[in-house]
């Protein structure tokens, strides 16, 4: 196939590679910039000109941020809600989707209508907020979990996928006397593991990046997730962030005070904070990536 490349093809390829390369670069550069700034001394950053790598390298920004108790607590909340929210959310949504994928289910049409209506019409923010309040979810960790447990959108996606799985598979298992749970775990889940991985990723990213619920549904500082922390941290004077633990750690830290710590600025701390929030994602990224490729491949097998 490659041998027969025409000239137009070659031009197309070159342009294509250039365009896509540029897109890739715009996606990568901010990470490079933030990494450089987070490892650069704040007072040096103020001079400008730090674009690709730190000019005067320092760990101090990270030291301060990693010892920040508030950030640690926010981290814990974010991890917890991402894990619990994703696992339970995908599971519940998957169950519902499977139930609905059975075409002959009596009342299916009505249930579908019931499920689809909220996709087009909702109460809006205030009634939703008031409902969370009357369920006692305001200022509770579960406000991050329960409302996202069932997603209509992913349910429809899953349902469509399940319907693409040959009905004969299910039916032959039923003939053999297998229960729905068995079918679900033996046939449906294995066949759609890539889809589940993909939707889990969607859900997890939603959880990880959400700052709104942390800002409005929770007033307790101990419940705010990382993104809300970043929001607060970015609106306010970040240079006030200073690890007292360091100061109390002893003479060594004091000696540092006058040298390294004196280079901290709001910008440098913020960049470190942002990187601290990003690094876990960047670390698991390659693994998620594999799932994705797999998901795409499996998606192509159907039908």
């Amino acid at each position, binding site marked *: 196939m490659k041998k027969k490349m025409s000239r137009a093809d070659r031009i197309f390829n070159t342009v294509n590679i250039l365009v896509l390369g540029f897109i890739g670069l715009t996606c990568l550069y901010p990470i490079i910039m933030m990494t450089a700034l987070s490892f650069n001394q704040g007072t040096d950053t103020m001079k400008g000109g730090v674009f690709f790598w730190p000019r005067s390298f320092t760990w101090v920004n990270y030291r301060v941020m990693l010892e920040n108790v508030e950030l640690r607590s926010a981290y814990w909340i974010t991890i917890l809600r991402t894990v619990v929210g994703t696992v339970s959310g995908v599971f519940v949504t998957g169950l519902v989707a499977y139930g609905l994928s059975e075409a002959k289910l009596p009342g299916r049409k009505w249930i579908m209508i019931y499920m689809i209506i909220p996709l087009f019409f909702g109460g809006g923010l205030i009634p939703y907020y008031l409902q969370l309040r009357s369920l006692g979810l305001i200022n509770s960790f579960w406000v991050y979990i329960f409302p996202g447990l069932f997603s209509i959108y992913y349910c429809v996606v899953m349902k469509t996928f399940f319907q693409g799985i040959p009905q004969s598979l299910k039916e032959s298992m039923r003939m053999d006397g297998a229960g729905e749970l068995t079918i679900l775990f033996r046939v449906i889940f294995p066949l759609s593991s890539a889809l589940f991985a993909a939707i889990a990723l969607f859900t997890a990213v939603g959880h990880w990046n959400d700052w709104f619920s942390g800002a409005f549904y929770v007033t*307790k500082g101990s419940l705010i997730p990382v993104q809300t922390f970043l929001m607060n941290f970015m609106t306010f*004077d970040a240079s006030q962030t200073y690890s007292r633990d360091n*100061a*109390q750690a002893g003479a060594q830290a*004091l000696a540092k005070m006058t040298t390294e710590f*004196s280079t901290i600025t*709001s*910008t440098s701390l913020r960049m470190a904070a942002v990187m601290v929030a990003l690094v876990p994602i960047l670390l698991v990224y390659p693994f998620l990536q594999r799932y994705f490729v797999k998901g795409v491949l499996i998606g192509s097998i159907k039908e």
Partner: protein
Amino acid sequence: MRRIVQLILAASVIVLAAFQVSAEPVKVSIWSAITGVGQEGKTEVSYSDTPIGNMVSGINGVDWQIQYTQNSNFANAFNLRLASDDWPEAINMPSATLMPMDKLQKLIDAKVIVPLDKYYNNPKYPYINMIPKKVIDYWRMPDGHIYNFPTGVYADPKQAYGYWAAAVWAVRPDYLAAVNMTTSDLKTIAGVEKFLRAVKAKGLKNSDGLPVYPISSGENIGLADLILNTFGVSTVGQGFDMVGSKMVNVRDNPQTKAALAWLNSLWADGIIDPEALSQKNDTLREKMMGKRVAMMASFAWPYWQTVTAGITPVTDMAFLEYPSAPGAAKSGVNVTYNPNGSAGGLLITKNAKNPEAIVNLVNETWKDFDPKMSADAKWEHQLTLEYGNRGVFWDWDPKLGKPYYVTLRDMAAAGGDYNKIAAIGFSMNPIIVQGNDSNYFTANLKDVLDWIFRMHKFYYNKPNVAPERPFDSLKMPAEGLWNKNAEVLGRLDLEYKAKLISAPKGGFEAVWKDYQNQLEQQGNWSKVRAEWEAAYKAQVK
């Protein structure tokens, strides 16, 4: 370092003995209603976290668990708390948020706070009895109860400790010298303009080769407010002030237009930092640290707090009298304080597990209060409220004519220098939980404290500072036009400040007209003003 800690511990033992407080301090959660995020970007801080805070709580008997205001926005945080009914045991409401007392009324209606009548006139709390009756009556709500322990009370408002006087004009002396001018050239707005233009013309650069901006502004164009004040416009309270024989609002004051037109002329010539209208406080702070701003006209508090040792944004700036401006006899008011509780009030909520501990602390802080005390003593009392008991955390130095901080001095004498002490923490508000003071976490703490103190002393009796006037916070009907439109009007003000300042050459008039139109169309301004005027007639004779 260890020695210092030991010393503090030793000192605290002595102090504890002196105050005969033996019991463990009671943990009391409190919402610090005005402060956004505490030190370390924290939203919750335990007082006893720091050695000094620990000591303070040992004496107070109360270990505050401070909750800061998330979301930067007080009204937002207040409404969210009201909606979620999530309240700590106590609330510290600064004066600005207490007045007019509609929020207090809401807290009462929602049964969040409890009446405190039984603690007043109670032999168990003799010092609370010393709170002047006038003050108590001032805070009495329509239902006849009092819900508030006021803090920062002045029998004689003229001699109040001016910690709130922080709206400054300041200049960097090195750049002043660089253009061959002196502070005496900056007495008029024309002189200021000459200086600003000279800085621009000279093309000054800082040591890193970055351009020096003659003047800049922090968040929400604070610069514009100070210029308005300098042009004689008052920006406090509900925006009204007596002009001639009439109450005139900022929006209608011809001097407002003159001030903004002046800024516009500077902007057009590139005198003002192009990022002035959009940047956040800390962008400006970093510019100031880099010596990239020659002059400052702003509230100073966002800029003196920094951890960056060696470079504080403000300490090498010299403050100035407000320059005189054409059309203004004196500067407008930008700071008011409420003699009946300038620091606001302490409210106790229904969730308080141990209200007595809180009341005991309040009682202690009133110990030194004497309506007939000297002016210095009044400053002292304020300091007591703010920094802790005199003789323990600070003392008055008659020779210096200013307070110094005993614990700091003692520790310094013990072999530490200010740099080292700064590392330990400096957090001593027993009752005014502002959370700012531990942010003086800077290696040149001494310089910063001195600068702040000199600044307060310099400005506290200037015309831009005034005791709260009866018309500053009129009670407006809850569902009325004023309350309904306040947010939109405030937003329009800010939006058009930016638009007016950055209006293209010759376009200022058109933008001003647009501003007036929008005030009317979006904000119903003339109706809103009429409502205020009616309230003024009814409430102020």
